[in-house]
């Protein structure tokens, strides 16, 4: 029933050591790999990663759209699965029967927008969009402006970003206090120009992505020191072309995306060596069975597959659909959102 199993870890030994002389994106193999993720119920990992199921659908679906195969997963089954993850409170859990959380509610909204099902939502239940939006808005902390992940109260700038991402897709930004959320992001800024997950926390590429993404959505990038932050971000690229998430850490395809999309939001994409990054991402492919891993020679999974493909799209790799760096969704879809018509 779940069209895409998270995370679909795999990869062949034979493809780990040898790299073809000329690296190309094996589009068909990636499509097949993603389509095959749900046929792996005989693997323990499939069951141990139920908490990623709805995210997995978003990762797989987005990768397929960017790869130019938007219909590779059946739309009706996708919609059915997403709606089965919704709870009474309006939020979504990772899989049917799992509790609501911002992480999955965000993925659900992104999937619904990608398969153009936001209107279906209104047909099946009047006020369906608003019900989701109210769940999200209810997680904003009225005193600090930031957002909790769920009723248990963990806060993180990730959740703030997801809230803005989903609410702008639903065109329901008026339900939250944008100003106080923006002040909270400012309080998370550090001297290196970056952002942490909370005030006083260390700068981290993932959190920079979430803070810049949130600021982009509400058109407040003017608050960012683009020169200083752009410099820090570009210093993430190491000699093998890959990017890391913090100084002195290992390169990784997922961090490459967060750094790259952040540079794109700042208009500084040309501050790193695109050709070398393309080579790095391509060398993380399993060219035999499809899928992309964190580093060359490691196990692939659908999470690194989507961020690898999205990175290539942002770098203008031929044959891919253009990605929106703010939403990590096809740009055609986000540009058409009512929120972005204003």
């Amino acid at each position, binding site marked *: 029933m779940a069209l895409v199993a998270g995370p679909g870890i795999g990869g062949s030994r034979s493809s780990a050591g040898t790299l073809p002389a000329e690296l190309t994106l094996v589009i068909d193999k990636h499509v097949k790999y993603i389509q095959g993720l749900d046929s792996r119920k005989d693997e323990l990992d499939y069951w141990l990663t139920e908490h990623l199921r709805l995210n997995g659908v978003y990762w797989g679906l987005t990768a397929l759209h960017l790869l130019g195969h938007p219909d590779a997963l059946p739309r009706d089954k996708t919609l059915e699965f997403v709606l089965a993850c919704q709870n009474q409170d309006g939020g979504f859990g990772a899989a049917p029967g799992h509790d609501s959380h911002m992480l999955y509610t965000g993925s659900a909204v992104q999937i619904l927008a990608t398969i153009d099902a936001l209107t279906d939502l209104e047909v099946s239940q009047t006020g369906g969009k608003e019900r989701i939006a109210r769940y999200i808005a209810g997680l904003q902390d009225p005193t600090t402006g930031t957002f909790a992940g769920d009723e248990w109260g963990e806060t993180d700038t990730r959740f703030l970003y997801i809230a803005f991402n989903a609410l702008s897709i639903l065109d329901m930004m008026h339900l939250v206090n944008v100003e106080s959320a923006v002040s909270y992001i400012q309080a998370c800024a550090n001297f290196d120009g970056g952002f942490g997950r909370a005030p006083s926390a260390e700068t981290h590429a993932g959190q920079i992505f979430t803070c810049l993404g949130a600021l982009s959505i509400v058109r407040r990038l003017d608050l960012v020191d683009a020169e200083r932050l752009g410099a*820090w971000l570009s210093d993430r690229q190491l000699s093998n072309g890959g990017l890391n998430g913090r100084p002195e850490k290992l390169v990784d395809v997922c961090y490459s995306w967060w750094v790259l999309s952040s540079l794109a939001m700042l208009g500084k994409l040309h501050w*790193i060596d695109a050709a070398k990054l393309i080579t790095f991402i391509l060398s993380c492919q399993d060219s035999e069975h499809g899928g992309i891993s964190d580093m060359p020679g*490691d196990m692939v999974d659908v999470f*690194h597959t989507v961020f690898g493909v999205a990175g290539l799209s942002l770098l203008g790799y031929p044959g891919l659909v253009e990605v929106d760096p703010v939403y990590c969704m096809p740009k055609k879809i986000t540009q058409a959102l009512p929120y972005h018509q204003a």
Partner: protein
Amino acid sequence: MTSHGVPRSATREERTIEARQRELKEISEYQRLVEEVNTKVHAKESTPQLLQQTAELLRRNPEYYTVWNHRRRIYVHEFRDLEKQVSASELDEDRRVSQVLDIIQLDLQFLFPLLLKFPKCYWIWNHRLWLLQQATALLPVAQARPLWEEELGLVGKMLSRDSRNFHGWGYRRIVVQSLESLRLQGQSMSRQELEYTKKMIGINLSNFSAWHNRTKLILKILDEENATDDERQKMLDEELELIHQALFDPYDQSLWFYHQNLMCTFDLDLAAKSMAPHLSTEQRLSYIASERRYIEEVLEDAQDCKWPYQALIECTLLEAKMQQGLQEDGRTKILQWLTELKTLDPLRKGRWLDMERSLVKAAA
């Protein structure tokens, strides 16, 4: 979040029949456990047996966040029940306190080995924090505070094992904040935390997490102690001294980021938020001049290192901000350093070219 650093190995087609069968058996055991827990939760059961089964499930899969939620709901129910019994005079307060304390301590013990095995699992950290917050809310200070103190010891151990663990450092700040709180009759621990960062830097100079924490702690200390401008300047001098000693390895970017952070004190746009906001222009210029001399020395022994060039450019631009813009010789120097950077650091050529263009444009 998903698969990191796991080498590619056999595909499932290459698994042996025994391995497959073993896996299928594990799957059915796991599924049975999940089903049992879910059935009991649906029936609103709240028995020790269910608690035991959630523990078993979480030991196998600590990412199953809904099960952590079930566990918390069971405890919330139990805590309320105990309070009701006290209100109804069926239980005396001392007994309630010792029972709540037992529950919390036992669960913290259950979590400890899980944390060692899955140090990057957010949900385990969240659950520990929730338990400790319950202790603060439900227990007298005499019982609650020691739990938080032990937690500080634990997070110290975690950080010794993985000194850059992002969760670990964030968690440490939360634990310290709690220990400092009025509710737990605490007081500022900033000085002792600053010592801790020094200890961590002493073990590994490139621990940027520790350097970062220093930047925040110093600001906090100076505010807490109502430091005078002189005291602030003294702190600045000590930090410059510390980073100069560390920079004997000029290839370590963590150190340069800390150095850059100190240089913010001399940046008119950022000084207000820095550790010494009231320096005079003269003082700032003299600091920059001495930093420049220091960096030039570093450069002498590390001509192939890009960081000193970047730092020299920054010094020159900061000076220009305080004088009447960039002078001709400053511009010439920066252009020379940029030429070096284009060669030494070709990955970021676009950045160096942008800077070059903006200098040429400003001159025109």
